[in-house]
């Protein structure tokens, strides 16, 4: 017996909803969450004042652009660091290997907040790096690079021995093996976690406000203190980050789907 198509149920966890049914449910949950939000706001008895905050929209826009710029730059630098460290962790030269391992463990084992203070007030000071933007980008890159190194390492390790042997048997050099065999296969494994790391990086950039970098969080704080509109500022702040992270998350979901079908 065929069950009739349902508005609420999938046949099994892996089946695909039709676009109509999907958007119906999305609209339904959005409406429910909005209603809950409206009710909570009413109960809290808060007075909203968007006008005061709106007057400072240029500050928000500038902060948002800085966050975007810092994140993009840090993403590029941390990808390079991640690749280098992942390869170093596979090096046969032991000092390089232990150095890479120590870096990954130190960075992953300590809070970003502490790293920012240490790098900005000790390291940047020592090498006379005064540009907060550059210091911030480097700190974030060093932090994110350690996580990406682990992601890349897992990607490289996911390539089976038989693949490496096959590459060897057809006479590829080490570099060619990485280029033609390891990387194209590792990318598929790595892309979802890499985009996840990218979302984290954007949010983590908010901590750079503590060294006085005028990114989105710092701008929101400033506006809040000028206008005494704390809530409005932070709601805008949250939306500003969502505007950056949501497209990446959606894109990741699509990628995951594509790769699932290809293999």
């Amino acid at each position, binding site marked *: 017996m065929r069950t009739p198509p349902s508005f609420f149920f999938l046949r099994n966890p892996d089946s695909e909803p039709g676009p109509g049914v999907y958007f119906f449910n999305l609209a339904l949950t959005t409406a429910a969450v909005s209603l809950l939000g409206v009710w909570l706001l009413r109960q809290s008895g808060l007075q909203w004042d968007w006008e005061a905050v709106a007057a400072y929209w240029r500050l928000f826009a500038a902060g948002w652009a800085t966050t975007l710029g810092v994140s993009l730059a840090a993403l590029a630098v941390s990808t390079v660091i991640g690749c280098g460290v992942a390869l170093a962790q596979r090096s046969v030269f032991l000092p390089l290997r232990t150095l890479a391992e120590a870096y990954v463990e130190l960075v992953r084992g300590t809070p970003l907040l502490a790293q920012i203070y240490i790098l900005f007030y000790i390291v940047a000071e020592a090498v006379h790096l005064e540009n907060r933007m550059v210091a911030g980008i480097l700190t974030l890159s060093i932090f994110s690079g350690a996580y990406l190194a682990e992601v890349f390492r897992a990607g490289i390790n996911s390539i089976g021995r038989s693949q490496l042997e096959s590459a060897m048997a*057809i006479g590829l050099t080490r570099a*060619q093996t990485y280029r033609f065999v390891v990387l194209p296969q590792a990318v598929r494994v790595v892309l979802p976690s890499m985009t996840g790391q990218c979302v984290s990086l954007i949010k983590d950039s908010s901590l750079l406000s503590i060294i006085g970098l005028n990114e989105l969080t710092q701008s929101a704080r400033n506006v809040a203190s000028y206008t005494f509109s704390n809530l409005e500022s932070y709601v805008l702040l949250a939306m500003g980050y969502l505007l950056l992270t949501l497209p990446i998350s959606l894109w990741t979901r699509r990628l995951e789907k594509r790769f699932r079908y290809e293999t």
Partner: protein
Amino acid sequence: MKLKLTNLARSFGEHKALDGVTFEVENCGALVFIGPSGGGKSTLLRILAGLEKPDSGEVQINGERLVFEEQRLQQHRRKIGVVFQGFNLFPHLSAVENIELPLTAVHGHSPAQAREVSMELLRRFQLAAHADKKPAALSGGQKQRIAIARALAVQPQMLLLDEPTSALDPAMTAEVLETIELLKDQGRDFILATHEMGFARKVADQVAFIAEGKLVELGAPGAVFGETALGETRRFLERVLRW
């Protein structure tokens, strides 16, 4: 092709995979290795392929000594075609791209030349219709024949097949064996390790029985599979052919 092995040995920990193998064949032809699993056939093939280094001993191919140094081995591997038990195709490349990769990356073919050579081989193996499929979309037999095509495309001095049908069902085994027979008919030299005794007997110019890391017997298939075979060979064949 002339092949000479002298006292070749290779251990993995306590296990002596090869325990002093010595033989010389003037004209390799179709040389088939038979013998129990773990007896050293694969290790021997892997050493010949330049994928494994012996602990001691010497390999000479056409009078030239094989030097087991990475740089020299890389040169050696480029002259050898290897077919593995598990196919080992590259899953992110289509059938035809799998054959093209060694041609363009290692042997200096232009993409157009490589495509021509690869398609010609696929046509000969009746696989042209599958050229653009990824390995995941192909049957085991098709995958193995593409692996054979990839090994042949570079016109290797020597073709090594390591139990190419051990992972296949009987119909696919037949399909791959037919392809190997085709190579034999074209007079191509190859060394094959196999458990397909009937096929070994039919296709081999010479059969080597290898067990416990030693070469027990080397001779024409008629002799190794016949009444005059040594006791150890006969006992092995009696057991595997009984069923």
